[in-house]
């Protein structure tokens, strides 16, 4: 990768990290519980993208495994909380 590509990737990383702040606003100010759950889901999705960009910055392909694990755990957590919200119990 050239120097220009590294600079572009770092700018993209800064923008993605800055996008976490509006999601945190929705997490604190959401009128209903489903809004907050949606904000947490969006935050974890943005974190997956941030980790992929971090793998590009650090030139290490093993960082992508962290994104895989985070995707799996956030999927299970979102389903569990949504089920608790709709039915009153998780399992």
């Amino acid at each position, binding site marked *: 990768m050239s120097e220009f590509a590294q600079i572009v990737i770092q700018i993209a990383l800064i923008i993605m990290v800055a996008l976490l702040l509006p999601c945190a606003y929705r997490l604190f100010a959401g009128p*209903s519980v489903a809004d907050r*759950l949606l904000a947490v889901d969006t935050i974890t*999705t943005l974190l997956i993208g941030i980790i992929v960009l971090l793998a590009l910055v650090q030139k290490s392909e093993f960082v992508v495994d962290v994104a895989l694990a985070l995707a799996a755990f956030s999927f299970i957590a979102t389903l569990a909380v949504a089920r608790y919200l709709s039915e009153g119990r998780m399992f």
Partner: protein
Amino acid sequence: MVTEILGLIFIGLGVFFSSVGVIGLIRLPDVYSRSHASGKVAILGIFGLLAGSAFLFPGTTLKVIGLGVFLLIATPVASHAIAAAAYRSGVPLIQTKRDDLAARSIAGTASGEQQI
């Protein structure tokens, strides 16, 4: 060189769609329409970043394809579960023309009788 330019274009598209989705998450009026915006972040934004990563750094291509397939399966399921949970816990819809779930009354005990 061409793959680098393609990767940078894909990363730019991913950041653009992520920004659009987060703006929608802030500005849309309803939890159901916000769920739509959140799906845009997951599919278009993260897929752009994954494609850019596969072009720029070919060692990550297999892992990125696996992550993409998992996201393609998991994101609609999670989004649907959040929308169903919001409906069953009684979050009102805005600008409703018709509400098929209320007519079918599968909406559980909390909002089955409730008029939305």
